[in-house]
């Protein structure tokens, strides 16, 4: 089968006059497009033609990056600190974070009340909870080496 056109095909390329007239008539007529369809087409076109997406970090000013990073680090450090159980000195019987006369006083009151005393009150570690523990805590409370003058 040959692809070449027959010699008289040039004449057949001429469209019928009726068809040409119909096309011309159609171009002149305004085609009605509903507003919803128009909006949908515009929206789709905008989506298609918008510039490529930038990352969310790039949209922030660059100077905000370091404060944000520092804030995040601070929050992480705070959370870690909160989750870690507080460390108290052996003599800090009232668990207020410092060894002072109130710890010694607490033990003295417990001894005065009597009864069985918990092992954690054995401040000097000699296996007995008694007045020597009271004195040991008081001595620690007034010791000068533990802090600098303010």
């Amino acid at each position, binding site marked *: 089968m040959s692809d070449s056109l027959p010699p008289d095909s040039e004449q057949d390329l001429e469209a019928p006059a009726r068809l040409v007239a119909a096309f011309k008539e159609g171009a002149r007529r305004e085609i009605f497009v509903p507003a919803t369809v128009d909006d949908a087409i515009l929206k789709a076109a905008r989506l298609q033609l918008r510039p490529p997406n930038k990352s969310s970090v790039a949209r922030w000013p660059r100077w905000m990056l370091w404060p944000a990073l520092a804030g995040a680090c601070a929050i992480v450090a705070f959370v870690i600190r909160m989750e870690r159980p507080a460390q108290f000195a052996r003599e800090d019987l009232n668990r207020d974070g410092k060894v002072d*006369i109130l710890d010694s006083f607490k033990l003295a009151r417990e001894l005065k009340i009597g009864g069985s005393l918990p092992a954690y009150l054995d401040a000097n570690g000699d296996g007995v909870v008694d007045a020597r523990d009271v004195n040991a805590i008081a001595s620690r409370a*007034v010791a000068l080496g533990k802090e600098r003058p303010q």
Partner: protein
Amino acid sequence: MKCWLAILFCALATPLFGQQAAAPHFRAIEVYVDSGNLPLAAYQVQFSVTNVTARIVGIEGGQHKAFREPPFYDPKAMQGERVIIAAFSTETPGHLPSGKTRVATIHIMTIGETRPAFELKLQAAADPAGKRISATVTCGEKPQ
């Protein structure tokens, strides 16, 4: 020659006169704690001399029976200018002082005529239940 000898004598004698001027003075400093209306069951005070060379040479107890015994202190404070004193009493509230009470007397030795200045810091004060209370601490030199 006599003139040179006079100058030499003056030069050697001057430090001796200076030493006489810097004679030691012994002073008794009374420490007071004022707990207001609440009974005072325990206290801890830091005391220091701030403006002159001084040495702590002795510590006495207070006025009220509950604090008459000498308070706890670090023996290393002796011969120094700073000490932390502390005491407590397990007596009932009726047998504890309230208001302004002398809790201790600190004896110091100073060199020179300058009047010493002191710094006091109340580190802790508590009621008979061991609860921390607010109080004020003051001191004054005992008249001799």
